[in-house]
């Protein structure tokens, strides 16, 4: 930079800043951390060939961003398959629980039926269905209805995405902040979004607290997490499902 036009005060500031420059390498612990992160990135990338056959099923090639590594698709597809299998298993267990409740003698009371249902659910799918089965027969029917209604969505996780199912976002879009402002009212509480995120192959709790908006991000399933706003601003993080780090972080005006 030329020094022309600088006042003496500004030139003195330049000199002070230059004197405060940092020289030297990062601390060893930072170097070690960076190297560990790089090893993880390389290792994940190394798993790409296994996922290659699955990649086209999640987004058309021309829709996928050029800079998105296939490994993200790999992990995402695995999560989607797991999530789909889990939801289908849960639905099957709930249906089985209802059937058992109807077959058992009615004079045994609702509690016996519910207990049987809960036991069945616990032994088959402790993660998702166990808690619901324990709530009793009436609740189980509600959940069964809910799951039945969501079950077709779960199939979308392993099938080609239905265009227009979710808002389409691009992490490199200069207008992304404006787009998120428009979409923000549609974000839901984390507890409400958990099921939807699971269906989308996202690991919701890892993304921390905040309202959720499921979206198609860079051609893949993703989620936008709107953090708790302060008086002036709200932080929004855009994730591609299956990746722990946001692909874009934005600061929006507070609602």
């Amino acid at each position, binding site marked *: *930079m030329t*020094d022309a036009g*600088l*006042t*003496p*005060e*500004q*030139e*003195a*500031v*330049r*000199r*002070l*800043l*230059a*004197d*405060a*420059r*940092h*020289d*030297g*390498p*990062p*601390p060893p612990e*930072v*170097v070690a*951390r*960076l*190297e560990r*992160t*790089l090893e993880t*990135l*390389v290792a994940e*990338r*190394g798993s790409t060939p296994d996922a290659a056959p699955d990649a086209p099923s999640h987004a058309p090639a021309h829709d996928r961003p*050029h*800079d*998105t*590594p296939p490994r*993200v698709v790999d992990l995402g597809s695995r999560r989607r398959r797991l999530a789909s299998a889990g939801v289908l298993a849960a639905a099957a267990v709930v249906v089985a629980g209802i059937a058992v409740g109807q077959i058992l003698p009615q004079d045994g009371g609702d509690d016996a039926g519910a207990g049987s249902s809960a036991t069945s659910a616990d032994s088959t799918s402790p993660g998702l269905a166990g808690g619901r089965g324990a709530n009793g027969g009436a609740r189980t029917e509600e959940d069964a209805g809910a799951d039945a209604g969501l079950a077709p969505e779960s199939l979308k996780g392993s099938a080609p995405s239905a265009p227009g199912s979710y808002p389409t976002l691009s992490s490199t879009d200069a207008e992304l902040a404006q787009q998120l402002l428009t979409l923000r009212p549609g974000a839901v509480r984390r507890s409400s979004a958990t099921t939807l995120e699971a269906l989308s192959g996202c690991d919701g709790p890892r993304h921390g607290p905040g309202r959720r908006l499921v979206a198609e991000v860079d051609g893949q399933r993703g989620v936008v997490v709107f953090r708790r706003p*302060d008086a002036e*601003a709200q*932080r929004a*993080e855009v994730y591609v499902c299956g990746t722990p*780090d946001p692909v*874009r*972080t*934005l*600061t929006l005006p507070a609602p």
Partner: protein
Amino acid sequence: MSDRSDQALLQAHVDGDTEAFGELFARHRDRLWAVALRTMGNPEDAADGLQDGMVAAFRRAGSYRGEAAVTTWLHRVVVNACLDRLRAAKIRRLDALPDDVEDRGTVVASAVRDDQPDAVAEDTERRQRVLAALATLPAEQRAALVLVDMEGYPVAEVAAMLGCAEGTVKSRCSRGRTKLAALLADLQQEAGDQSGGNPPPDGPVQPTVRPRGPPAS
């Protein structure tokens, strides 16, 4: 370390070479760390910002189009990661002194004056004041000053790093320097005394140190 150029290493990474990116990043790591450290204001946030930038660069290497030097692109990715973190965290500008006042740069700079404890203490205090004042600036102004005045990159290159016009970089630097001048007026006076008196009122201060420039890559 190989003799491959930055561009060759980046292309090799895109083509699947598992070692290339590590070599490329290690080549520029110290400089990127310095920028992250001074932009973020403390080592913890700087480590986070540098790691974010490294991950982004690793994943987005395919987006590099060769329009700027690889080192410029790397700086851009890292600085943007830092700025994203600053915006997100809304780090308070009038925080206490930055945590890195005892960082390696300070220690190294002080080591050559072990026989002058008073001078070392003055240097340390001056650096603390400068870094604390720098931390009060808006993130964009701070990043511009770190890259231009601290690291010595040309304005045109900084404009490419920050993704803005050269005029914007100059404007941010000018506004930042003006604010710092007000905050550090007493230090300027001391600096003037040390160099043999106040500068002439109508002329620029003559630099007492060799202007810094980017490393030859």
